[in-house]
């Protein structure tokens, strides 16, 4: 899995943010302040136009004051009553059809999803979870956007708002009710997906006859080698001890245990196709081609700024420094035994070729470990880099240095304060390796795949609640169809938020929206500047205003592409707890913000016509 964004510790994310951005809380407060001032301004202008300057101001004051007062009058019993009503309403609107559709998708999925892929689990998990995500978002959209407008249309809202129901309760009740319905649907989909993935990937083999004897130096038979039968488009190499205990070695992302049963060894069902690797990330620095220390590597063009590159066949290197490495080796953990023999780590390389080379042949590189305190560096371990693939390796306990002496990994290469450096270099001239902080990690014991699967569902749930909140809040003011359209636009912009921000900040080729439109119509090249003149000045002027507006809108756009954690589970990585808490906090912020917006939209509109 290629992680494109750094996952910050929760408190840093909340209060400080990354180096070039604000913390989430200050950003949220700023957005609230901006939206509040904008709402006050617009509200006053409309009210003043209708009722005069003084009376308009009085109206705005009363609405705001009443809003604060009603906040303290919110009754959980009323909110729950409205939520129950929303649940019953959703049931009446046959939401359960979504489950039927999901069932049909799973039934036919087996036609298209084959297990001949090198990583079938990734394919299956991404498919079922992506299908569940889109179905849930679709249902949330329909429920959220059409509920209140339907009440307005049938006038059932009359009998609600003539009771002591606050507008905020009406909005919160709807959001809560539909979220409960969506949660139940998601639960069923998640269980079905989990069972589907397991049932589809579960298989076994048999050990083929004709096992070869493995002997030691004294010609004594110490075990057997062989192959399994070909099932599910693959076969495994088999290694057994003299008692025919052993394993079918890793292939297609899984292994099988083998135990003796009668004369023939029995192959057990596949293990490890669903994993939750727990990475321990370090701090990344770079050396440039002259061997000078840099914070970042070089840019190879239009690349995401999170990742930078090192030149091949030069002194350029990516250096990760890991803390508390001794603690990993001495931890009271079942995996300690493995860690004591060798230090497992993972490496993901983005390969950038400036010439084709031998296209079938991967680019070669080296890995070294270094003690940051003593400067002791191991011999280079060579490897071949396949672009964006997780390469799981181990650093052996005994390592040699260029002078030929053997050293212990933990005693000699780990500093007294528990630090260890891993150096990665590219060997081929004119080729580049791209790295980000998360691309090299020490492997901690795996987490539970089931729990990881639940975390993905939680991220889908977060998206669902945000979509429901947007739908309900917008439908407090718009008709059902328009509210749905608005929510769809919000979701689409959210999915393409980075591009949207790029256009707003003028970092995308082709200029702002009007300039792009002109280029599109005239079929102009996006790399060539428009001819200077009054027309171009006018276009740039309009674009300037639009881009400022887009930048403001971008501040409240949910980044749906970033919410998805399907890739984590599909690639077999544990979703960090920091990420889960960040998503939940973001969700809470959206619910609160949208509920407040929905309250004022509903409060300031006439219920009757």
């Amino acid at each position, binding site marked *: 899995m290629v992680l494109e964004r750094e996952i910050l510790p929760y408190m840093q994310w909340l209060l400080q943010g990354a180096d070039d951005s604000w913390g989430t809380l200050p950003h949220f407060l700023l957005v609230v302040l901006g939206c509040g001032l904008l709402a006050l301004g617009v509200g006053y202008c409309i009210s003043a136009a209708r009722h005069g300057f003084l009376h308009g101001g009085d109206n705005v004051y009363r609405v705001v004051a009443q809003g604060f007062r009603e906040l303290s009058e919110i009754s959980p019993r009323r909110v729950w009553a409205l939520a*129950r009503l929303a649940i019953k309403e959703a049931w009446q609107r046959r939401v359960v059809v979504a489950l039927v559709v999901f069932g049909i998708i799973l039934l036919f999925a087996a036609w298209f999803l084959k297990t001949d892929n090198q990583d079938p689990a990734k394919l299956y998990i991404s498919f079922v979870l992506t299908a569940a995500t889109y179905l849930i978002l679709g249902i949330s959209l329909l429920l959220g956007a059409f509920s209140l407008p339907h009440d307005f249309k049938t006038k059932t809202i*009359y009998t609600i708002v*003539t009771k*002591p129901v606050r507008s905020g309760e009406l909005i919160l009740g709807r959001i809560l009710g539909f979220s409960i319905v969506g949660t139940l649907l998601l639960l069923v989909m998640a269980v079905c997906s989990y069972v589907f993935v397991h049932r589809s990937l579960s298989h076994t083999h048999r050990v083929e006859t004709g096992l070869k004897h493995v002997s030691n130096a004294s010609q004594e038979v110490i075990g057997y080698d062989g192959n399994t039968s070909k099932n599910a488009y693959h076969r495994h190499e088999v290694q057994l001890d003299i008692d025919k205990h052993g394993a079918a070695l890793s292939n297609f992302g899984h292994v099988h245990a083998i135990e003796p049963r009668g004369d023939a060894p029995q192959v057990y069902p596949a293990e490890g196709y669903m994993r939750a690797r727990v990475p321990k990330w370090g701090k990344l620095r770079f050396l440039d081609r002259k061997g000078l220390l840099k914070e970042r590597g070089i840019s190879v063009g239009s690349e995401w700024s999170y990742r930078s590159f090192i030149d091949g066949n030069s002194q350029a290197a990516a250096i990760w420094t890991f803390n508390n490495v001794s603690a990993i080796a001495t931890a009271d953990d079942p995996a300690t035994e493995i860690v004591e023999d060798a230090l497992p780590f993972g490496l993901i390389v983005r390969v950038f070729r400036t010439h084709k080379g031998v296209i079938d042949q991967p680019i070669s590189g080296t890995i070294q470990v270094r003690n940051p305190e003593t400067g002791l560096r191991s011999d280079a371990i060579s490897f071949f880099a396949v672009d964006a693939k997780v390469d799981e390796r181990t650093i052996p306990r005994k390592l040699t240095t260029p002078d030929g002496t053997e050293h212990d990994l933990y005693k000699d290469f780990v500093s007294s304060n528990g630090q260890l450096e891993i150096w990665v270099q590219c060997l081929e001239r004119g080729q580049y390796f791209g790295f980000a902080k998360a691309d090299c990690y020490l492997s901690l014991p795996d987490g539970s795949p089931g729990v990881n699967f639940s975390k993905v569902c939680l991220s889908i749930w977060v998206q669902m609640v945000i979509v429901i909140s947007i739908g309900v809040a917008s439908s407090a003011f718009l008709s059902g169809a328009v509210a749905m359209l608005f929510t769809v636009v919000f979701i689409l912009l959210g999915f393409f938020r980075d591009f949207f921000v790029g256009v707003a900040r003028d970092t995308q080729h082709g200029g702002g929206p009007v300039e792009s439109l002109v280029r599109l119509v005239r079929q102009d090249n996006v790399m060539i500047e428009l001819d200077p003149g009054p027309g171009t000045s006018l276009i740039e002027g309009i674009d300037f205003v639009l881009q400022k507006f887009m930048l403001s809108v971008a501040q409240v756009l949910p980044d749906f592409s970033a919410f998805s954690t399907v890739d984590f589970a599909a690639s077999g990585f544990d979703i960090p707890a920091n990420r889960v808490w960040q998503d939940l906090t973001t969700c809470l912020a959206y619910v609160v913000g949208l509920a407040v917006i929905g309250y004022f939209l509903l409060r300031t509109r006439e*219920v009757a016509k």
Partner: protein
Amino acid sequence: MSEETVIQTRALSKVYRDFWGRQKVRALKALDLEVHRGEIFGLLGPNGSGKTTTIKLILGLLFPSAGEAVVLGKAATDVGKNERIGYLPEESYLYRFLNAEETLDFYGRLFDMTPETRQERVDTLIKQVGLDKARKRQLQEYSKGMTRRIGLAQALVNNPDLILLDEPTSGLDPIGTREMKDMILRLREEGKTIVMCSHLLADVQDVCDRIAILHQGELKELGRVDQLLTVEDITQIRARGLSEECKNEVSQVIARHSGELLEMANPTTTLEELFLGIVRDSEARPGRRAKVTAPVSNPDNKK
């Protein structure tokens, strides 16, 4: 606003506008009204006269273009006033997928009632409006009359001090109409204030203490029903068992005193009274043709 005044409107006006803010219709023009505690107040007028608009402004469903409405001492837009208000809309806008019990339980929850109070209130109201046998049926299976009755029950779920009824007898058969009117009179006896609007004159005449007549958004008449209906320069004589000679003599007496005899005939009852009499007789003697002696219509007897 005195303690006895439940609703007060001051120059209450409503102008409906289109999307661009242009005036479409002036539905209500500077209405000044006061409704007192414990009375049945009728808003009377033809279609489009502003009756429903007035009710909606009082309830806060619409915002006034000018003027203000004060209900139970609070501004009409204050949600807090709804604690003591019951509202029966023109059509019973209820959730059709709920049954009677669920409907009343839901509205009870909106008043933040405890489960025990809610249960008790639901039982009482269902019996009161005669839906005991249909309490588990979804409202979509209800007849128009049953829907009106459950609508009334939801309006009474909080035992309100002020009840606003918009066309309460609309769509009801004569029996349903009478039951509704009896219910309204009973509620007044319990000390509740009722504001109803209707264009059915007989209904208003039967139950209202005071009425306001609206036409094209303007208040045309306001006062007690009995006073408004009294024709000052006409004297009505009602008697039973007079002979033709006696009638002639009465005519002569009127002529002698320079009066003009407008009509002397046997009075007719109302169709409503006749219909109700037939139904009562039919229930008392099933399978036989009804024999109804037409009672003399007297509005005083109905109140």
